[in-house]
């Protein structure tokens, strides 16, 4: 019974691959022989005019849409004003100082917080969240920003983060609560959240750009929209995982609905909710950097403009500034997530709140002292170090000495891996591509997923984006393959040796906190633009989940099974191959899934280094402010992500069923 099933499995995949390969290789000849151009190119007349419709709809929305009393324009203006006002206050507080009056006559009322005050505040937060070690760590990160001349940009970025995070957290929490309470709302919300998480970030920059215009407000709106979905999800999960008995205890105490939510459910869920806050902070930082393209300013803008000027040193400097900030924010917010309730301190008001007291004292004294000693107010320029020339020289040195080596590696990989794979994918006739995808999805996950895959691929073809989508799939496929080949052994190593594990997983944690933008910098410096650079950046960005899930999967293998293996006389090698790896396969699949999702999201950003895929299409749409083009291309990326997600999840759950886990 089983051998026959296996045989038919092998037969299915063999035939599918061979026919795809044949069609891909000979599609051009086929088109010539049959004189049927539709084989290689989706007929123009069949294309859906979706792009135009979307663009027209947005134009209408901005131009003439109105509700009863106000136009849509008024609505966006009102939102702008609501975001702009607190943002400006924060900017004044952190960067510009408060002034009264306009233009020439403006008089400074109060200066911005001095760098010392900001660093002491963040150290206080670090100590409050955990301990002195964290306090020093975040302090050093922020000191780095001051010493290396990134202060002002960093504070602009921080102001954006400080505005977006509360909106994202509160908005996400409220939406999550609503979804928890109202069944139909959750059913509507869930697919939207799924889509939001897979649509590439550039895609919704475009409509927001059109609705809100170029500038910090548009950037903040985009950031909030990007960072909110995980908070909604985590809120739903957190509320649903409050133990049933705790809810019953609340009901037996006679809670009304509101008391139940705010006195029982939300407080009980706080540890999980804080994980969501950490995610919102990190996603916000990531997006604030990307949104520099639509006017966010700050560190992201510095990186972007250095990349455009090919100013190597400046790019790396600003990039490291982002890294420092990311590490500080991540560690501090994670510590908050793990922090449990503490006993209040005894004593008078200063003794009970030592940090608040210190911070106020420092702010007040630097405010006064800053009037007389400028160095207290602003970090003195004379003392800033610039590492720009150093990095430029280092890069130059690397390029001079290793140019041939890098070039050789690049050529070999291009020649033997990238180009053949690209030829294979781009050669597949679109009609067969749709059928093959549907067949694969059907075979793995049943007819529903097969049908879904077929329809989504048809949408991509009908939008006239087939060849670009194939480039995306090829780049993503190659990058994921290499990331998996590197990542899984690293994960195994991390699981087998605790010491290596600490180093590797720590490194992966840090890699994952970095905004995706940062990855582009060294890659472009070393390999210039092109598919190869894009691939390296994607691999770096998408490596972490492959490693983590592999390590996690191996550690999750029940100890009893390992003991059983040892007592049957397994060697370490046999233990790994016969027991641990087979049992870890569901986790490996989930890791693969995450790797693909991250790869797709990074791929869109690598459009900046000149790929010719869907990401490029979105990026062009962004520069031309063509909402329709951006959204259609963005949806195409999302659909590829959704198909792979469904198929791999089906694989994982099939595997889990067979293992009986």
């Amino acid at each position: 019974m089983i051998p026959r099933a296996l045989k038919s499995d092998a037969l299915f995949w063999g035939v599918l691959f061979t026919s795809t390969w044949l069609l891909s290789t000979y599609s051009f000849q086929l088109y010539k022989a049959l004189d049927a151009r539709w084989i290689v190119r989706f007929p123009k007349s069949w294309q859906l005019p979706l792009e135009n419709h979307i663009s027209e709809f947005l134009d209408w929305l901005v131009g003439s849409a109105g509700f009863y009393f106000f136009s849509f324009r008024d609505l966006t203006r009102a939102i702008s004003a609501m975001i702009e006002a607190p943002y400006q206050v924060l900017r004044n507080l952190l960067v510009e100082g408060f002034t009264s009056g306009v233009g020439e006559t403006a008089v400074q009322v109060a200066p911005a917080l001095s760098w010392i005050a900001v660093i002491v505040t963040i150290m206080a937060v670090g100590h409050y969240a955990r301990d002195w070690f964290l306090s020093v760590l975040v302090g050093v990160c922020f000191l780095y920003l001051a010493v290396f001349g990134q202060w002002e940009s960093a504070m602009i970025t921080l102001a954006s983060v400080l505005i977006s995070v509360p909106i994202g957290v509160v908005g996400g929490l409220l939406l999550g609560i609503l979804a928890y309470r109202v069944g139909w709302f959750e059913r509507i919300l869930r697919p939207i959240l799924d889509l939001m998480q897979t649509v590439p970030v550039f895609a919704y920059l475009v409509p927001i750009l059109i609705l809100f215009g170029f500038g910090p407000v548009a950037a903040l709106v985009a950031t909030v929209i990007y960072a909110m979905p995980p908070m909604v999800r985590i809120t739903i999960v957190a509320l649903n995982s409050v133990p049933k008995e705790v809810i019953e205890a609340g009901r037996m105490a006679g809670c009304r609905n509101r008391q139940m939510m705010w006195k029982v459910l939300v407080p009980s869920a706080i540890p999980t909710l804080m994980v969501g806050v950490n995610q919102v902070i990190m996603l916000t930082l990531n997006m604030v950097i990307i949104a520099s393209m639509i006017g966010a300013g700050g560190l992201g803008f510095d990186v972007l403009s250095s990349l455009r000027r090919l100013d190597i040193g400046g790019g790396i400097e600003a990039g490291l500034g982002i890294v420092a900030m990311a590490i500080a924010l991540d560690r501090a917010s994670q510590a908050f997530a793990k922090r449990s309730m503490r006993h209040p301190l005894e004593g008078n008001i200063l003794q009970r709140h030592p940090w608040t007291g210190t911070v106020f004292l420092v702010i007040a004294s630097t405010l006064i002292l800053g009037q007389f000693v400028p160095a207290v107010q602003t970090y003195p320029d004379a003392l800033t170090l610039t590492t720009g020339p150093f990095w430029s020289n280092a890069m130059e040195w690397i390029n001079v000495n290793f140019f041939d080596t890098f070039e050789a590696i690049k050529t070999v990989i291009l020649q033997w891996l990238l180009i053949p794979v690209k030829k294979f994918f781009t050669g597949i006739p679109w009609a067969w591509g749709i059928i093959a995808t549907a067949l694969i999805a059907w075979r793995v996950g049943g007819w529903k997923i097969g049908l879904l895959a077929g329809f989504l691929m048809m949408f991509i073809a009908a939008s006239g984006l087939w060849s670009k989508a194939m480039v995306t799939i090829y780049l993503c496929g190659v990058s994921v393959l290499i990331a998996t080949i590197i990542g899984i052994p690293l994960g195994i190593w991390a699981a087998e040796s605790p010491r290596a594990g600490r180093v590797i997983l720590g490194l992966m944690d840090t890699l994952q906190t970095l905004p995706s933008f940062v990855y582009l910098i060294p890659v472009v410096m070393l390999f210039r633009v092109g598919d190869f650079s894009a691939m390296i950046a994607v691999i770096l960005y998408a490596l972490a989940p492959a490693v983590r899930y592999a390590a996690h999967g191996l550690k999750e293998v029940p100890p009893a099974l390992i003991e059983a293996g040892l007592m049957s006389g397994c060697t370490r090698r046999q233990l790994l191959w016969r027991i641990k790896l087979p049992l870890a396969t569901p986790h490996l699949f989930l890791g693969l899934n995450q790797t693909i999702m991250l790869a797709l999201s990074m791929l869109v950003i690598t459009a900046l280094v000149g790929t010719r895929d869907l990401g490029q299409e979105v990026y062009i749409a962004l520069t031309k402010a063509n909402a329709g083009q951006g959204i259609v291309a963005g949806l195409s990326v999302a659909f590829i992500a959704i198909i792979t997600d469904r198929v791999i999840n089906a694989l994982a759950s099939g595997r889990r069923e067979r293992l009986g886990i």
Partner: protein
Amino acid sequence: MTKPVILDCRNVWKLYGAQADTFLNTNPDPSSADLEAANLIGAVRAVNLQIRKGEIFVIMGLSGSGKSTIVRCLSRLVDSTAGEIRFEGKDLLSASEEELIQIRRKKMGMVFQQFALLPHLTVLENAAFPLEIQGVDKKTREARAHEVVELVGLKGRESYFPRELSGGQQQRVGIARSLAAEPEIWFLDEPFSALDPLIRREMQDEFLRLQNILHKTIVFITHDFDEAIRLADRIAVMKDGIIEQVATPEDLVLQPATEYVAEFTRHVSRAKVIRAASVMEPVNGDSFAGEVAHDAVIEVIADPVEASDLPHKVMEGDRQVGQISRKAVIDVLVGRR
């Protein structure tokens, strides 16, 4: 003299499944086979219970027997599918949401298997929680919380958080919380099942001590038959959603109504449940070695009765109702009856 019935539950059903709500309209008394055919799960089936003021009423059953569901029906945490539940004469099932909230606030208390403490509140705040919900001002509710925390023996730990306490201490907090609002009926859903055996025994003693002070009406759920006979005034044995028998521990052991109950009681040490009145003989003669109470279990009186050649008087109050001799006690101890 029987005490008044506080909680009266008649023909209560709780079905789970697709047509659970309408099924009983067409078939008011379905058999197990009927339910299975309709793809329904009968968690509680035709349950009749009368819980009297001041008694400890234990509902005993193995997992899946419906004992947790029935206690949730009684507190209306779960809405029963059919039947009638009267609490202090009022129909509980037709009570509005608002009435229910008031009943729970003032008259019911509940203790949970996994303690169900709020992790962000201290011991004192947890104990004061039901009062906080009612809007009692901080000073009053903290004073009351101090009382109940002291009552359960946690004085000095008021500012601890639940995670800093052992399981037994956490359940003491759960008990304190359930008592804070001075409920009239006290539900305990397997309160000691999550505890180690030694702690469990200690908590049972503690529970009996509290009941001696408080005289609450108690519905106590357990899967542990020894716990049931140790604590109960009356026991209801449940199986597959049906009450097999309601009786005092002694009657349950001496006259099991069904094979299932008999299976449970077979290995119970009889000396722990049989009372003097059940094995006494009519008075004959006038020389006695001493007196025993008519409701004392044999285990307690075994030593003096067995040690003397003369029988003991069995007393109900000041009146002698019979005599008990060495043979009767030994019969019970070696399992001859």
